[in-house]
């Protein structure tokens, strides 16, 4: 049989647990528990909102459609800038290890404000004009993104291994950093390869 002091300890523990339970709604207002992993998503989908049927063999005068999407899991609302860049095979990609963006200038941009846990998606249409070929080079003079024309003058050499004139439509995600009061590359980028056929 337990001694009276042991029972006293049981009652005191029950009292403490009870007080903690009753105080939990108030404590939850004061204590901030650490959340889960903070990250953002960036994606490109094909014209049917699926990860398939991406434009690949492209030609001048035709319009192509993809969808760009962003997901926010940063634990609070976030301010993103999605940059659309266009590169040939020799121009640098972002460096995921060093978390540095591609030095190419952005052509088009989306400014996106997203609450935590929400996603955003927007259409991205593009077409090419003034495409010419000479010797083993292909030159694109103008790229039209969402009905805005950009003069790019971008050439690429014939790729013997993959048989084609390859370019890449590159999408980078940048995020506004409240501490530095500036946008920083969020180390998220996606791209689709395009083979200029005509």
């Amino acid at each position, binding site marked *: 049989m337990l001694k009276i002091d042991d029972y006293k300890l049981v009652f005191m523990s029950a009292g403490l647990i009870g007080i903690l339970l009753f105080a939990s709604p108030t404590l939850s207002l004061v204590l901030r528990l650490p959340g889960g992993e903070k990250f953002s998503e960036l994606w490109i989908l094909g014209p049917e909102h699926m990860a398939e049927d991406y434009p690949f063999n492209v030609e001048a005068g035709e319009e192509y459609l993809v969808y760009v999407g962003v997901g926010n899991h940063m634990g609070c609302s976030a301010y993103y800038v999605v940059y659309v860049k266009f590169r040939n095979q020799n121009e640098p990609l972002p460096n995921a290890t060093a978390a540095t963006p591609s030095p190419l200038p952005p*052509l088009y941009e989306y400014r996106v404000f997203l609450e935590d846990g929400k996603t955003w998606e927007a259409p991205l249409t593009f077409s090419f004009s003034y495409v010419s070929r000479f010797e083993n080079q292909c030159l694109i003079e103008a790229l039209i993104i969402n009905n805005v024309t950009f003069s790019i003058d971008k050439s690429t050499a014939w790729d013997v291994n993959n048989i084609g004139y390859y370019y890449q439509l590159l999408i980078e995600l940048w995020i506004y950093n409240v501490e530095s009061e500036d946008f920083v590359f969020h180390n998220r980028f996606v791209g689709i390869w395009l083979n200029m056929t005509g």
Partner: protein
Amino acid sequence: MPLFVSADDGASSAISEANDALRRAFEAVLEAERVGANVSGLIVKLNEVGGLLAEAEIAYKNGNFSEAVSKAKECSGLADGVMDEALTLKGKALAMGQNIFWQNLSITLVESAVFLIFLFFVWDWFKRFYSKKLMKMKPEVAVDAED
């Protein structure tokens, strides 16, 4: 004395001001969100303003400076409006948060006090019950195992 006039008709400074206004508006919205305000409506408005700023930037890149200035100015005005709304919402959320806190604290104190009084009575009853049980026990002589 040479007079330098910006070639872009003030478009770059208008865009820069719009950028700053939008950042300030976002920071105000973030502050409001941190104190528990529902900022969904403000986020929708920020997206509209952000769209305008993106259009201004694209117009500027394409050399359409007058369009860039007009969109950037519209963006600045709207962003300032969002910031004002966010500050109002933050004030309301703070007041509501304090009310909720004091309400919760009062309920917690009352609940805890009632629980402790109840526990004290149970303890008192248990002590008497335990003593009574102890008194009723008869002393027994244990058999020495070594014998």
